[in-house]
């Protein structure tokens, strides 16, 4: 019997694994997708290799790329941006690690307290989470982003709107700021040359400004895995978990099994979680093990799917409900000057509007940029609006860019300034993950169905998004954009949360204040689905990781008679020389 079995090695599961490994527990970590043990070998810079939704290495599918991806039913026009594999979606994220808006917690008493989704707050205060934020920020580490050209331009635009700069990690007011990113600072030749011979570690350290965040970061070349620039959990928390016995006096290395898709959670007669069953993709073999505690970290879609496929209780019907996705939109400005849109970190700047959401300046490689420009709910400009008239706020077009419009906009991808809109959206029961009744089951059971009622969102959610869109258009116009395009996206689920939400009340939540399942003792959730809400619009990864750290402490206290460590000990950074030595020694 294991001490703890964790299902899913992404942004949350890897954190729980490392924290409990450092306490000396016997941890088994299961991951459905590939291992990604050697990024320089496993990844390239090519979009076709990485981002092809069917066969790319960043797809949601098995390790064997000759086999088809795993299927989900999308009930509407939408894209679900998730991937399988150790590191999960942090492998293709842009490292953005903002803290949540304080207004989505119980202890907030600011003048704008009523601007938030007060019906679905976190079941504890923001101040309680602060030490866990600090712990993760030191561990990864998270630092203030440097500027490339697109950030410089974006900050000028924010100042044109009369916005001040934020100089704390917390969100305190409407303001712009360099991102707090989980990306190591450029040192040596990094960010100062394109010559690959001069970009080899240790001549170059940290971010090399290659512009390939979405294809996976393996820079600088020849760096030990824990010193790769972008702090995906596959290069930070996972190497620490695999070497915990070497860098921690109390540590014990975890057991990691990839290509292992969990298909069932077993309970005893008292509905206490006891075991996990999984299937090995390459062989089809089925395994099962017992544990004193089980943590689900499969993501906002697969965690409720596993719950439902396991026949676990769902007395209030909230398993899978309450999906928040930031009601994403995108505004693109065609600028009369270079923006370096494809060069440098994917996103180094943002504007917070507390109680409303967030704007981010983002850069992408041309294939992804063109795809995102052609993905709209508002028809084709000049032909039909698909029932969404207006809403341009002075933009030249609203809708998907195709034909000459797409070619014109894409004629110089480095003259685009792209602003993504992330809305502070309400938790709504209608937006949910269920089991599909029309798609056939796959080898892991009934497949999930994602249902999002894009045009029936709450009035507050819709108003928030429109406010942000108008600000983005104004910003681009203030900078002299020759054309501004609003895409008006269908559900573009790049941030997803709260489908297994923790909450104050038992009537509309699945998890209690410890992130333990209300109806299944010893079963915890520690991925984005555990979040109580959409955290106000900021990127969710850091908050999930801080919450996962807190949950690790709760597990250790509740079931292993341990003491909390955050606030009582100094965290060890994943780039600490002791960790580097441990990684080299073990050959991780």
């Amino acid at each position, binding site marked *: 019997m294991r001490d703890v079995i964790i299902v899913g090695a992404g942004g949350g599961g890897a954190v729980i694994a490392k924290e409990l490994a450092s306490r000396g527990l016997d941890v088994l970590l299961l991951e459905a997708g590939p291992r990604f043990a050697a990024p320089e070998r496993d990844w390239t810079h090519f979009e076709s290799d990485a981002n092809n939704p069917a066969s790319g290495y960043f797809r949601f599918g098995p390790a064997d790329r000759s086999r088809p991806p795993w299927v989900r039913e999308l009930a509407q026009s939408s894209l679900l941006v998730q991937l399988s594999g150790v590191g999960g979606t942090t492998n293709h994220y842009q490292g953005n690690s903002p803290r949540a808006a304080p207004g989505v917690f119980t202890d907030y008493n600011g003048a704008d307290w009523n601007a938030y989704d007060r019906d679905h707050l976190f079941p504890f205060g923001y101040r309680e989470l602060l030490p866990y934020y600090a712990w993760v920020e030191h561990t990864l580490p998270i630092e203030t982003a440097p500027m490339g050209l697109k950030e410089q331009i974006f900050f000028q635009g924010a100042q044109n709107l009369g916005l001040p700069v934020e100089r704390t990690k917390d969100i305190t007011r409407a303001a712009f700021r360099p991102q707090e990113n989980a990306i190591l600072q450029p040192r040596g030749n990094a960010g100062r040359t394109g010559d690959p011979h001069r970009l080899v570690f240790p001549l170059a350290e940290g971010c090399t400004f290659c512009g390939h965040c979405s294809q996976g970061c393996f820079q600088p070349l020849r760096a030990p895995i824990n010193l790769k620039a972008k702090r995906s959990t596959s290069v930070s928390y996972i190497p620490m978990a695999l070497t915990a016995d070497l860098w921690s006096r109390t540590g014990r290395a975890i057991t990691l099994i990839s290509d292992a898709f969990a298909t069932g959670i077993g309970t005893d007669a008292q509905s206490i979680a006891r075991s996990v069953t999984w299937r090995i993709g390459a062989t089809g073999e089925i395994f099962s093990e017992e544990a004193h505690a089980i943590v689900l970290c499969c993501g906002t879609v697969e965690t409720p799917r596993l719950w439902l496929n396991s026949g676990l209780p769902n007395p209030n019907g909230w398993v899978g409900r309450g999906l928040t996705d930031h009601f994403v939109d995108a505004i693109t400005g065609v600028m009369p000057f270079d923006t370096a849109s494809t060069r440098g970190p994917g996103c180094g700047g943002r504007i917070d509007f507390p109680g409303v959401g967030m704007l981010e300046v983002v850069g992408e490689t041309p294939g992804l940029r063109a795809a995102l420009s052609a993905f709209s709910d508002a028809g084709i400009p000049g032909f039909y609006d698909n029932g969404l008239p207006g809403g341009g706020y002075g933009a030249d077009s609203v809708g998907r860019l195709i034909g000459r419009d797409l*070619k014109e906009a894409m004629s110089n991808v480095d003259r685009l300034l792209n602003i993504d809109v992330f809305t502070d959206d309400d938790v709504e029961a209608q937006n949910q993950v269920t089991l599909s009744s029309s798609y056939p089951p796959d080898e892991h059971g009934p497949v999930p169905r994602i249902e999002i009622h894009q045009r029936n969102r709450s009035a507050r959610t819709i108003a928030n998004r429109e406010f942000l869109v108008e600000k983005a258009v104004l910003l681009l116009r203030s900078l002299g954009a020759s054309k501004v395009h609003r895409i008006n996206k269908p559900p573009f689920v790049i941030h997803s949360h709260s489908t297994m939400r923790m909450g104050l009340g038992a009537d509309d939540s699945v998890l209690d204040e410890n992130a333990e399942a209300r109806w299944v003792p010893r079963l915890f959730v520690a991925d984005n689905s555990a979040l109580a809400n959409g955290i106000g619009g900021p990127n969710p990864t850091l908050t999930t990781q801080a919450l996962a750290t807190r949950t690790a402490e709760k597990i250790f206290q509740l079931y292993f008679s341990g003491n909390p460590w955050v606030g009582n000990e100094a965290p060890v950074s994943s780039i600490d020389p002791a960790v580097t030595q441990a990684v080299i020694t073990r050959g991780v």
Partner: protein
Amino acid sequence: MKNAAAKKKDRPISVKTGAIDDCESAARRMSRRGFLGNIAMVTAALTLARATDFLTSRGWVQAAEVVTTDLLHDTFNGLLAFIVPGPDDYSVAQGVSTVEPGGVDEGVADILIATLDETTPFVPQFSATVAGILNGIALVVNPSPPGTFLSPFACLSFAEKAAVFQIMDGTEPLKPLAGVLPPFVAFFCYSEAAVFDPVTRSLTGHPIAWDLSSYQGVSDGRNEFLGYFENRRRVR
């Protein structure tokens, strides 16, 4: 003359979104097109298959079986020209063409077809089903499209192709497909897909897409570091 014709064809046309009765009526007129006989059922149903039994019950599987390879390529070349036009015959035929290369010139139809099939593994030849939908609705929009292409969709003007998407966007079961087709096509046209060798995981030539987008190409690093805002490297 060419520009004038293009301008005329580029105008929006009137379409009754979701007018299933109209679609059925129009579909009945398609019998002379033997190669698309079963597509009438597809169009009448106006339903995107979500399961094999569902497909079969509506004749979509049978419809896919009668879509020949030439028709398949014709249809997707017509789609490539619609999303990313170039100087090719399909773009010229739709009345919207450009001097510089487009999706057809890149030759990514096969990759698009393969990807559609791979993303829906439980529907045999899903790409053929998609082609059937595009061609079936094309005949609703224009029962007698001019031109010599096998695919009715490829024979449509740009505005008529937009009308096909308007119907799909306005028809509940077809919305997911209408939503993802344009970004899929755009991705393959603007990435290195046309010259990417999945075996060696390297490029076999210079991507046209990089020229179309003035992209500098992939790199291990760039000389782009501009320091820190207000020279501030950390906040508390």
